[in-house]
């Protein structure tokens, strides 16, 4: 994508809504505000319940974007819309557009398997498969055409090192993934996603099922991934959002439907929020 396109997208985006910031003025060096995911007028319904109502939002390449808001405001739904995991939910209907790298992912031409290889996801509860540690990484890799034994092993070792799990498990790769501790399981799930060389990582409250120490380890890991991957993370831990995120998006339930209330630099959302609801939420008064 050349710079001309990017400028044009930014101009059009600025015209469409007020949430997206202009070019980055301050903020972490890693953040070059190039939108990689563009969500436009996106609504999501379960039967006749509206989980997300006309959300418009850009997610910037290489940055960490935190989604905050009370339970039930549609954060998980928003994440699963980005990798079309919503396809698996029979009563879920989507309206609007999500573009990843300029391509509308809800077009019929979009290959979901490739999309999901490009966009990794980590769930709230660690979800390793009931297989060995080795097989957990090997299975998705093979599915994406990496079949040479040496290559599989090299990638496995590399991603396990990346998540800091290698020295803990290298001598028991063939034991059950479910025998690992919760924090280790979650890091294995992150490693499994990284093995597919994704561009974007979606994380749905990745620390909330973990004890404080394991949570800290995972948080440090996420910070380490910043810049190498685009990360969208849902968190209920506002302090954590503040520590790690470059951008923050605040969701809230209005008229029984989830709305995006405010999006901006993380620091601005926490220190100088524009919207009253945001101010109340981040100060802990509501939600």
């Amino acid at each position, binding site marked *: 994508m050349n710079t001309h396109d990017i400028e044009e997208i930014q101009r059009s985006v600025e015209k469409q809504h007020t949430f997206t910031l202009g070019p980055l003025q301050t903020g972490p060096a890693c953040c070059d505000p190039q939108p990689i995911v563009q969500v436009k007028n996106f609504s999501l319904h379960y039967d006749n319940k509206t989980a997300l109502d006309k959300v418009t939002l850009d997610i910037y390449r290489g940055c960490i974007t935190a989604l905050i808001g009370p339970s039930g405001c549609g954060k998980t739904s928003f994440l699963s819309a980005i*990798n079309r*995991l919503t*396809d*698996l939910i*029979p009563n879920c209907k989507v309206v609007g557009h999500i573009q990843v790298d300029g391509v509308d992912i809800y077009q019929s031409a979009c290959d*979901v*398997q*490739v*999309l*999901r*290889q490009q966009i*990794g*996801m980590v*769930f709230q*509860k660690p*979800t390793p*498969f*009931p*297989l*060995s540690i080795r097989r957990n990484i090997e*299975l*998705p890799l093979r*599915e*994406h055409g990496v079949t040479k034994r040496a290559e599989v092993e090299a990638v496995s070792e590399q991603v396990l090192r990346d998540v800091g799990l290698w020295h803990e498990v290298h001598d028991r790769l*063939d*034991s*059950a*993934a*479910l*025998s690992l501790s919760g924090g280790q399981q979650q890091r294995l*799930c992150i490693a*499994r*996603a990284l093995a*597919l060389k994704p561009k974007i990582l979606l994380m749905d409250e990745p620390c909330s099922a973990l004890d404080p120490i394991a949570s800290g380890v995972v948080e440090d890991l996420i910070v380490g991934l910043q810049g190498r991957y685009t990360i969208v993370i849902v968190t209920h831990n506002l302090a954590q959002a503040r520590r790690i995120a470059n951008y923050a998006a605040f969701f809230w339930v209005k008229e029984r439907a989830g709305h995006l209330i405010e999006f901006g630099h993380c620091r601005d959302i926490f220190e100088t929020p524009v919207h009253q609801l945001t101010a109340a939420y981040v100060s802990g008064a509501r939600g």
Partner: protein
Amino acid sequence: MPEITFVRSRSILRDRLVQLLVYAAVLVVSGVFIWILADLVRGGVAHLSWNFFVDSPRDAGRAGGIGPILVSTALILLVALVVALPLAWATAVLLAEFVPATSKFGTIVRYSLQVLAGVPSIVFGLFGNAFFSIYLGLGFSILSGGLTLACMLLPILVSTAEAGLRAVPENYRMSAAALGMSRTATLLHLLLPAAAPALAAGLLLGIGRAVAETAALLFTSGYVERMPGSLLDSGRALALHIFDLSMNVPGGDAPAYASALVLVVLLLAINIVAMKLAYGLQRKRIMPA
């Protein structure tokens, strides 16, 4: 006056009573089983010998053995399973994985299977006779009997397999999909192995029913006691042999007992093997202890 007292309360007595009742029930159930087994051993073990397993029956079964009958039983079972298993498991996969749980199609299929499960086996026998033996011209043959049994086994195989697949946690499907795995790969590598104990249990129930079946085979595979030469020959199943000996052959009690003993031991063995198999499969997938 202490604030906390540790006086035995009535609830402890109630717990004891419930425990007692549970143990009593277990005792009754295993008692009945042991009694039956003991009765069979008492009446039949004297008649058992190596020759009993390999010889053909003579004098309407009063003498000789059950060699051809074992072969016929195995062939009928084989036909039934070869036909029913792929059909049933494919149906279960369809119902559990590919159509929404509440869809009309799924509901209709499930309902039909339930009805089928409730049909008495003699009705299956009459149907098998009319359809396979007469309409398709297969006559009284092992093939007719096997196909009839296959129809009878479908509901049990489908429902156990479907329940097994549905019991697999949803997050396996979600995380597999999130890793860009295809539905087929997810099914083959995750869902079916996770459901394997249920599949094995269903298979076991199916085999049990098939081996013990009499009425459905009476009019389909027939009761010719000769060694079958092909699947188109008539062949007498073990349960049918027991029925015939005890009902139609005066003086056939001892071989009937012996045959029944063989049948029960066979069922026991199948149970144990299938349980081991399911356990082994589970171990292979490396579950936490």
